[in-house]
């Protein structure tokens, strides 16, 4: 009889896990050892990592290609400002509340946009984001089309300069690492199994008893709530919201899509690799302005045509790498 063992973790994945925890601990202490410009950059990195991870969960695993996630980024910012300005809620407490409210808003939104199939779903989500932006521009109490800054009285609630920068950085770190951990754990769970099955074949997964519609709905709402929490954090990083910036399709969706496509769609590692590449490119090419965007768009098309699973997917297939194993491996003994 043939002997075999089943394992999930690999040596690389164990090393990666230890490395990730050490990195997290070092970064958590960053407010004591790093400059405020480093904190700012790292916070921004975490924000993009979180957005990319969430978009990847929708598009890469559920087939819900949304080009309207800026709807929830903006909504999160606007809810946070409303809560802080009109109800006197502490800005940091407003972040989870913004996530909750946005998730509630996402329930009826989902039932509308889910009526559009496939690619039309994508544009439907975009229309939704435009509706949110136009409504925000009509909100005169929040500065209408030109937006509003967080008054100094509210900013003071976040503490002095050091504490404010540190707590916003910690929140960004928590959201970035939290989203990554959530997706990892989610994909290892029963829902993850259902998601992977849906990704591979909707017809086959229906026949196995997976309620696709419900899984997609729940996931859309979850991602909307988390995206709004990131949006809330972004609004506190900038201390300002305006319709055009908060609901920007370029900043909160186009870049995020490029990150995921270049890094590797439908993999957990992809968004991490993509975010690193995105920030490296930005560091070296941002001075070129429009040429930089031209380059990014071209790179995304080349990757999509040449290596549809992105750089990570290409490497993983070739060398069998896996930092976040969600599947099982079977080893036979002779």
């Amino acid at each position, binding site marked *: 009889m043939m002997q075999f063992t089943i394992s999930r973790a690999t040596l690389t994945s164990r090393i990666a896990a230890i490395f990730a925890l050490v990195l997290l601990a070092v970064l958590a202490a960053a407010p004591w050892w790093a400059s405020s410009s480093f904190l700012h950059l790292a916070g921004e990195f975490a924000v993009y990592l979180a957005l990319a991870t969430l978009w990847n969960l929708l*598009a890469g695993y559920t*087939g819900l*290609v949304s*080009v309207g996630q800026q709807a929830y980024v903006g909504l999160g910012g606007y809810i946070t400002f409303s809560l802080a300005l009109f109800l006197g809620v502490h800005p940091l407490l407003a972040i989870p509340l913004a996530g909750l409210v946005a998730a509630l808003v996402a329930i009826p939104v989902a039932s*509308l946009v889910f*009526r*559009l*199939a*496939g*690619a*039309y779903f*994508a*544009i*439907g989500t*975009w*229309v939704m984001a*435009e*509706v949110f932006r*136009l*409504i925000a*521009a*009509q909100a005169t109490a929040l500065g209408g089309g030109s937006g509003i800054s967080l008054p100094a009285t509210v900013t003071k609630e976040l503490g002095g300069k050091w504490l404010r920068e540190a707590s916003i950085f910690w929140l960004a770190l928590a959201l970035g690492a939290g989203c990554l951990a959530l997706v990892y754990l989610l994909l290892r769970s029963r829902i993850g199994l259902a998601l992977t099955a849906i990704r591979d074949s909707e017809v086959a997964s229906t026949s196995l008893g997976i309620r696709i519609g419900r899984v997609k709905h729940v996931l859309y709402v979850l991602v909307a709530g988390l995206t709004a929490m990131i949006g809330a954090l972004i609004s506190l990083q900038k201390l300002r919201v305006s319709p055009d910036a908060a609901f920007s*399709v*370029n900043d909160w969706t*186009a870049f995020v*899509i*490029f990150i995921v*496509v270049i890094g590797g*769609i439908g993999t957990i590692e992809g968004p991490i690799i993509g975010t690193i590449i995105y920030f490296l490119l930005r560091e070296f090419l941002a001075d070129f302005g*429009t*040429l930089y*965007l*031209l380059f*990014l*768009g*071209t790179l*995304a*098309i080349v990757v*999509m*045509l040449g290596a*549809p699973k992105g750089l990570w997917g290409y490497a993983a297939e070739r060398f069998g790498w896996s930092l976040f194993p969600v599947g099982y491996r079977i080893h036979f003994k002779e």
Partner: protein
Amino acid sequence: MDLINIILQGVLVGGLYALFAAGLSLIFGVMRLVNIAHGDLIVLAAYIAMEVIRLSGLPPLVALIFVVPVMAAFGYALQRGILNRTLGGDLLPPLLVSFGLSVILQNGLLAVFTADSRKLDAGVLETASVSFGGLSIGLLPALMFATAVAVIAALQFMFYKTALGRAFRATSDDAEIAELMGLDRRRVYAWAMALCLGVVAIAGVFLAIRSNFDPFMGPGRLIFGFEAVIIGGLGNLWGTLAGGVILGVAQGLGAAIDPGWQILAGHVAFLLILAIKPRGLFPRMDG
């Protein structure tokens, strides 16, 4: 009388939205492709028209003689060179590649033509109008609407009465069987895209005569076209015209209440129809 006038203007603007939408509807019908760069291609056509006019001094509508073939050739090449490689069951590649294309077009136009807003000058055509019984109809909106009707009638004729249309319908129904019958699907798709961008060229020139344009106007035009397609129902070109008209009227009524509500009213009309009739008003095919 005011209300009738608002509705009438809305109907005529709806013609322009139908022109935005017709190409979108056509390529979705033939190859199930939703091109996110559609709006940016409309803007590209406007800039090409601007250059043609600058070099030749022709009036904008006559410049179409050059702009339409240039855009059609570009469409053929785009389909054969890039978009054909993305087709094949999976939804993601065409969507993401056309999204990348959209960003490239916007920033390419920005790099070449700067962010200044431009406009094409059509002379007396822009201001001429006929009035009767208290209603006044601008010559340009009327011409726009008549063009939309003519374009859709021509597409309809092409689709149902010509060999090319038969090839489109056959490939749409079952691409593999169509290939067994001797059609090359990559070529059929390329012709569909060429035709689509021919219509886009007309839409772009009318857009550029009617209002200012800049490199970032594309996504907004894509959304209007998309709304017209969904309101009218997939696969129905006359439905698309009706969708454009409904969108135009809704925007007109919104603007009459408050200028800030113009675009919002159009979106709300779209969402209402989506809520009540998810497949649009006159659907002919499934998404």
